[in-house]
């Protein structure tokens, strides 16, 4: 059993960076990258716990997350492309038509 605390701290830092990016950045690509950052922070935490517990459950979950992230990238980038084509901008604040 090794100490996984540094990994978990790194995971928390990465998650916080990603979260802050999602909340404050306007460029859709950057927001997207921040989302990926959060996912990978979660992956790191899963793998770290897997190591701590000595079984493979966390690692299997991390693979699933990667698959989901890949699918998400395909669809997300397609959406961003479409928005950019119609509005000539990739700012998430510009795409705010769907509201009250």
């Amino acid at each position: 059993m090794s100490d996984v605390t540094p990994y978990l701290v790194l995971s928390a830092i990465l998650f916080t960076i990603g979260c802050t990016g999602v909340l404050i950045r306007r460029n859709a690509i950057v927001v997207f990258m921040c989302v990926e950052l959060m996912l990978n922070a979660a992956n790191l935490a899963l793998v770290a716990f897997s190591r701590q517990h000595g079984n493979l459950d966390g690692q299997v979950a991390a693979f699933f997350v990667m698959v989901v992230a890949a699918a998400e990238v395909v669809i997300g980038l397609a959406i961003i492309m479409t928005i950019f084509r119609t509005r000539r901008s990739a700012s998430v604040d510009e795409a705010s038509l769907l509201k009250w």
Partner: protein
Amino acid sequence: MVPWVIGLPLIGAAVLLVGGRHTDRWGPYLATLLPGLSFLLSVILFLHELGAHDKSHVSHLYTWIDAGRLHVGADLLYDQLSSLFLLLITGVGTLIHVYSLGYMAHDPRRRRFFGYLNLFVAAMLTLVLAENYLVLFLGWEGVGLASYLLIGFWQHKPSAAAAAKKAFVMNRVGDMGLSLAIALCFVTFGSTSFAVVSHGVAHASEERMTILGLLLLLGACGKSAQLPLQAWLLDAMEGPTPVSALIHAATMVTAGVYLMVRSNFVLDVAPGARTAVVVVAVVTLLWGAIIGCAKDDIKKVLAGSTMSQIGYMMLAAGLGPAGYAFAIFHLLTHGFFKANMFLGAGSVMHGMTGPDGEGDVDMRHYGALRTAMPVTFLTFAMGYLAIIGFPGFSGFWSKDKIIDAALHEHWYVGALALLGAGITAFYMTRLMLMTFFGERRWLDGVHPHESPKVMTGPLVALAALSVLGGLLLLGSWIQDYLEPVVGAPPEDSSGLPAWFASVLTVLVVACGVALAWLLVGRRPVAATSPQQVAWPVTVARHDLYGDAINDTMVVAPGRRLTGVLLSVDRYGVDGVLTGGPFAVGALAGVFRRLQNGYVRSYALSVLGGGLVIVLALMVVNWQ
């Protein structure tokens, strides 16, 4: 046989009104024939019963209402009182039908007119033949309906439509009184039958009987155009003239007097109600007479006169057993001479029809018609002499008796009735002078001519009745005849001899005639009514401000009340119901602002939500 008296005109009304255009050609003749047959039946019944000992009998048609304690049969009562009414209604009614054949000959809707006339007669017959107040009420409402239809017969004229509505609405006020009276009868006696009520009055409290009497009086006021419900009668002149004759002589306005006399058992035990009847009657008889003095419209003069004469009848009814028989006596003679004069006025209007086809009613355009229309003039003169009470004519006997009875009651009631007789003489003489005497004031294009025989025939018959109506009093016949219904008159107790009232009346009447001669007969009549007049004339021309009083006392407060109720409904009742949805809507308007379309704010909400959940879990799992 009795039901057929009602049934025949009812069949006529049904055939004409349901049959539609198919009956256009022969309908009016059928409608004239059926009341005629009804009259024959009434005469046969009358002669048949004259010899019989027990003259009143009830015919039970069927059970009308049978609910709980309330049992009402469709019962008809034929007795002395209804027999006289039957003769008057069917007799005068038939004459008016015959007259209408000529008067309405060129009206495109005359089939409908005759249908309504028959309905009117049938309703009035139901009213006087009823054996209980509820059947009477049926006829009462039928009369109201028929009068509404007939007053507004020329519905293309807004004034006629308004007059019909006014008559209907004012009658509703009176009907409310009658329906409350019926309810009170049922509560007190458990029945609305005349027989039960007349036996029960002896045991009922006087207070309650006074209330009952006052409610009945309210009903009678509405139908008989007594104060304070008098205003509809003058406007009712918008109807065709035969209708006015029917309303004023045979049907409708006499219903109130009938109700009072029929309810004599109630009035006998309620002196308070009787006093109210006398007060209403005296005020009305003067009120109507004063209006009659100031009008230039010949029909309105006669309408004012009807109000006044009905006032005499109500006065007689209010005098109690001393007056009931005379009320009916005056009602009969008035039926004759007023029908005569109304039909005569119609004949004059018919003769004075201008190039526009409208009959002229303004007496200022008449004058010297006695040569142009001799038959109308002579018959009208008979009616005139009868109404002012010229010695020997029918009105003399009947009015004289009422004044005599009034003098016995209180000298001031008698004095006011005498004054009314004087004013009556004044306005009727004025009418005669302006219409038939003086110089010609005819408008251009008017060629007065005598009316056709079908119109003058009824006039002659009614004129004869106006002259001879007094025969009913021969040997106190009418008092003895009606005694089983209305009770015996008390023995004369005052010191006045019988001839005293007669002489006094004749003197007052002579004064009235002389005054009319001085003011109207001697001088040429202006072609338009003078505008510079003393204030009493102005007041009388405006019907003594009857309409203005109604407007300020009833209509305006009613409108205000409606306005208040309307706003209570709108803001109170509706407010409660619409307030909830409105509050939800307003709240939603505030919260939907959260949905602002910015992805980052949604993300923040998600983060916030996640934090809340994590914190909550930590709190819950805190060891």
